[in-house]
């Protein structure tokens, strides 16, 4: 509670300080006689920009409220084998408030911009979604981002909740990257060369404190489950950084109406550890890697209020966990055996502005074209099923700042005991107050 009070106090202080900061912005024009570099602003006058985004939903499903738990438990390499399904709280039937987003951004000085994106949950807790700085003045199209941030891989990964076109995370992201996507602390270097068509390349070195890719069950999970001597041996991960990514994006020149961007990306976690308790307690360690490709197409129609605009995006992800049995007191001979897990998935989503201020969206996501665990010594493989989800929604956006959305999702989920289905219904609002920075493509 104290923390919230502090943040709100700080936020109010920033608002009050805003105009004063604005006035101290450089007005080069005064010195140079009309050839002014001063601006009536293109977004940087209120220094820093502050915005608050409210989101809430009304929810119902046909499984007495456990539809989300079903989806989270979809059979796959990060779910099977008796460990918990991510422990993410599912949607409760009725009304609920989504985390309230607090975004603050500003130029720090001529060299750095800084961004903070915090969320306050309905229960009063706080979480730091992002807190990072970027460089402003590096030459040759180079840019460094450092701090805690959403990785630049893929298309959907660096979008915040309020930018999500659908209420829930995409199915392949949820299964292969985690409910928040890939978010971690570290440093990113991007290069935007002055090429005849748009290209961007990036690499990231991240600490590896991530719940799926960088999973490391560590001491807290091992404690009480395995003997103290084993906790010592497997309790702490190696020194970071332990998670690395690389990505590339390119966009051909298609004129003013059409925009196509394609990308490839890879993720590698050098130190991955899982504690499994089924059938016996055992520890697997090794590496997690993931490769993917992302595609976005946008059509900008010459109409107002978004009528005729179309946007389609699709991503494919392929993940491999290359692990070995590090500890298994019940079956000592298996120690050193390989356990290779492979799973992939994709989604395709689109939205179309069928009338002024109205758009319709649809999404299909699935995981498990490949979905298996291979046991090294015997060469035998265990196959998990495929899971699918179809979503459709209708969005009303009377202004830039308001979105009211109705959504239906139908899931067919492979579980240990066969295939189960769920229908979910959402009514959602997203309101944004204050000065919110423009969104990236």
């Amino acid at each position, binding site marked *: 509670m104290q923390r919230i009070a502090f943040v709100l106090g700080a936020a109010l202080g920033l608002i009050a300080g805003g105009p004063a900061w604005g006035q101290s*912005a*450089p007005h080069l*024009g005064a010195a*140079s*006689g*009309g*050839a*002014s*570099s*001063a*601006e*009536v*602003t*293109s*977004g*940087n*006058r209120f220094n820093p920009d502050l915005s608050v985004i409210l989101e809430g939903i009304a929810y119902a499903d046909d499984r007495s409220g456990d539809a989300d738990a079903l989806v989270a438990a979809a059979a796959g390499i990060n779910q099977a084998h008796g460990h918990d399904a991510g422990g993410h709280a599912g949607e409760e039937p009725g009304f609920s408030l989504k985390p309230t987003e607090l975004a603050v951004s500003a130029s720090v000085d001529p060299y750095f*911009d800084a961004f903070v994106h915090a969320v306050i949950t309905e229960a009063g807790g706080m979480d730091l979604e992002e807190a990072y700085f*970027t460089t*402003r*003045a*590096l*030459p040759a*199209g*180079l*840019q460094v981002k450092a701090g805690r941030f959403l990785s630049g891989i893929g298309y959907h990964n660096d979008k915040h909740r309020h930018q999500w076109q659908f209420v829930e995370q995409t199915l392949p992201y949820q299964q292969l990257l985690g409910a928040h996507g890939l978010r971690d602390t570290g440093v990113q270097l*991007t*290069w*935007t060369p*002055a*090429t005849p*068509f*748009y290209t*961007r390349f990036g690499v990231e070195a991240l600490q590896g404190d991530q719940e799926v890719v960088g999973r490391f069950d560590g001491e807290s999970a091992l404690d009480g489950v395995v003997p103290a001597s084993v906790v010592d041996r497997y309790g702490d991960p190696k020194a970071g950084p332990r998670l690395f990514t690389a990505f590339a*994006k390119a*966009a051909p*020149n*298609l004129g*003013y109406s059409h*925009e196509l*961007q394609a990308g490839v990306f890879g993720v590698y976690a050098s130190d991955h550890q899982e504690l499994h308790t089924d059938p016996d307690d055992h520890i697997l360690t090794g590496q997690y890697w993931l490769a993917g490709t992302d595609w976005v197409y*946008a059509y*900008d129609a*010459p*109409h*107002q*209020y*978004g*009528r005729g605009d179309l946007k389609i995006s699709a991503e494919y992800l392929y993940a491999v966990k290359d692990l070995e049995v590090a500890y298994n007191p019940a079956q000592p001979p298996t120690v050193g055996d390989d356990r290779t897990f492979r799973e992939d998935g994709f989604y395709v989503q689109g939205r179309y502005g069928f009338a*002024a*201020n109205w758009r319709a969206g649809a999404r299909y996501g699935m995981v498990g074209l490949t979905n298996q665990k291979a046991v090294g010594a015997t060469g035998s493989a265990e196959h998990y099923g495929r899971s699918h989800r179809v979503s459709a929604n209708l969005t009303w956006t*009377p*202004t*830039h*700042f308001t979105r009211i959305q109705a959504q239906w999702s139908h899931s067919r989920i492979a579980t240990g005991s066969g295939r189960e289905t769920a229908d979910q219904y959402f009514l959602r609002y997203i309101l944004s107050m204050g000065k919110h*920075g*423009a*969104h*990236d*493509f």
Partner: protein
Amino acid sequence: MIRILLSLFLVLAAAAPALAQTRVVATTTSMAVLARTVGGDAVSVTTLAPPDRDVHYLQAKPSMMRRLRRADLLLAVGAELEVGWLPAALRNAANPGIRPGHQGYFEAAAQVELTGTYQRADRAMGDVHPAGDPHVNLDPVRMARVAEALAARLAKLEPAAAEAFRRRAEGFGKQVQKRLPGWQERVADSPGVVAFHKDINYLMDRLGVPIRGYLEPKPGIAPSASHLKRLIADLKARPAGVIIRHPYHPRDPVRKVADATGWRTAALPLDPELGAGAEAYFALIDAYVAAIAGDR
């Protein structure tokens, strides 16, 4: 492979001096007109937004970032007109020289006096621009002032051509002065116009033509039935003028008001066509004047 890359690099390097014009990226075609008019052969100009799109509603796109990445000068309208996309495009363009506050960033609205500034900007008033009405592009007199300031800025980037820039900006201003009385005369005692969005006010002020209303109940808010009803009642009580919309504005509400009131309608772009120069810009003003003057 390396040899191919190397030779490609050499070809590009050899071609570079030939392309040594100042690369200007204009957000709108009106801004591009100024860059071409003032810059002449010394500049190459590309535009981020074609005139058939509403600049309020664009999205930052990779194609914009590509243009900005290589730009020497960014010519924006400013006053938050492009706030929904330009900051994001700039952020990702990785070109420090054209960021606000640098020599490579130039904002037209900052060079002239703006009207419609709000002491208290509240979004309940619609999509208002607290710094003032940014739509300076249709006022030829303000544009002439922007041209002068632009000449001074280009002179800093390319001192050798300073005199030519100044002369061309002056020439543009003289053209405006020469044409303005004729325009004003043609629309004198016009019964007025109705605009769709609040974006032609500077021109109407300049021409002395009263604005009798807007299709949008508040800036950026789509026309509502109740607002149109009030507008129709109001317009019926006046002599018929002309309702002006831009081609990207919806046609139906305009037609509805026109049918109910007997006002004429005209669809005119807010900015001249892609690649336009000063003549095309003046032709656009001519078109507005002709639409207001009607067939009287």
